């Protein structure tokens, strides 16, 4: 059993797509059937408000709280899923510097807990995001 934290660069055009989300849900079920957990984390230049709304919409479309947080390069804050309301934490100077270079390990581990075993953080491309997750189980 593994918890995959999948990191995607935020692109509303690619992720706000009903047909792609439907394909993604089918693929997600296959991964969960094998006893794995998947969480998604988005990072990019959007505002906290936009990330908050996006996470709420995306989770609704998928039908489960798959996305708990986003990282705003614009505000250097960690935006936490809280419905459409905006809840955020300022990143430390060290973490803010790291995320610039797309190093997310510290931020993610601080949120999900260092002690949790079998966490695997993967930075994935946004192209064909709905199907790319099948790579996790070798399909």
């Amino acid at each position, binding site marked *: 059993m593994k918890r995959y934290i999948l990191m995607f660069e935020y692109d*509303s*055009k690619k992720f*706000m*797509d*009903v*047909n792609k*989300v*439907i394909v993604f*849900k089918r693929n997600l079920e296959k991964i969960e059937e094998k006893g794995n957990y998947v969480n998604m984390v988005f990072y990019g230049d959007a*505002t906290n*408000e*936009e990330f*908050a*709304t*996006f996470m709420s*919409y995306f989770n*609704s*479309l*998928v*039908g489960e709280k798959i996305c708990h947080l986003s990282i705003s390069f614009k505000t250097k804050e960690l935006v936490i899923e809280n419905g*459409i*309301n*905006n809840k955020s934490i300022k990143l430390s100077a060290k973490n803010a510097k790291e995320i610039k270079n797309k190093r997310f390990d510290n931020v993610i581990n601080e949120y999900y807990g260092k002690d949790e075993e079998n966490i695997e953080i993967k930075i994935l491309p946004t192209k064909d995001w709905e199907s790319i997750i099948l790579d996790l189980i070798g399909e």
Partner: protein
Amino acid sequence: MAIVTNLEELMKEKGYTLVELAKEVGISTVNLSNIKNGNISAIRFSTLDEICKVLECEPGDILKYKEINKKKVIPLFLDYSGTTDLLLKGGAENVKKFFDSIIAMQSKSNYEIQITMITGSSFESAKSKYKLLNVLAENYGLPNLFDGVVAEYCGFIIRKDKSSRLLTLDTRILEKRAEIEDIAEQYGGKISPEVTSIYNISFHEISRTRLAEVSEQIEKIIDCQDIETVTYYDAYGKECDVKPKKHSKSEVVYMLTKKLKEKYDIPFVIIGGDSQDEDLKMYTINKQRMKEEMGLKTVFIAPTNIGEIANNDEDIIIGNWENSDGIAQCIETLSKRIKVREDGGIEL
């Protein structure tokens, strides 16, 4: 339909330049250019008389009546939390079903559906909602579905190209501006340069929950019950009327419909929401006056059960409240009621 000018052709025919004709008629080149290009809403008889004299023609040679086909649009006003939020919560399949019902209705009627959402969110949140819903619809092949979002408490309408001030300026609130600013500051926010009515004071950087607290405090310093006159501003920031204070959401629907009616060929108006109080008022307050003043039928759709009232009015359509696809069901029911006339128009 419109009055158009034929001045350009006449000038060519008679060999006049704009400058020469303006000089002979005795008006400025700019004014004559505006007449030539049709950028006028009226023309003086004396000016028309002079132009006819110089060009040796009849007024009918200059002004023509031309029928212009307006874009066919069905406006759909949706309360955000009662419909759109509910729709999204039903998941991607539910949204797909809704979009399909819209496409089917558009295809049957040959009219384009344009949604205006009404939300109590802050300006920034409403802007994000609008952006993402637009992307969702665009990706499904419906790029014009979401026409705008009204941020009700802020008094703004957000559209693709711009955001405009929407509602109301109350002089009595203006008198208390300094005190209102103090309250806003206490809550870490600020108000926009123009303070509007109690329901439409434009606050920034204050969440909706706290906005309610702020409003409560403001209600204490100004007696809201006594506010009798409100100056209304249209979606383009232009002052348009002074009226007694009315239900905010209903006024938004009324004013926007008036604007849309000028621009588009509208067969009827759809209003949607899930609350018997706030949302249904948008329909009950407007039904009669939209019919009398604009000749428009209004229907109300509710994706959930809104109670007994719906049983006595055939223009209220209720979706199956046990399922989350209630709004798509409403659109499908409405679609079945549409009758296409021989002239291409539609009716319910």
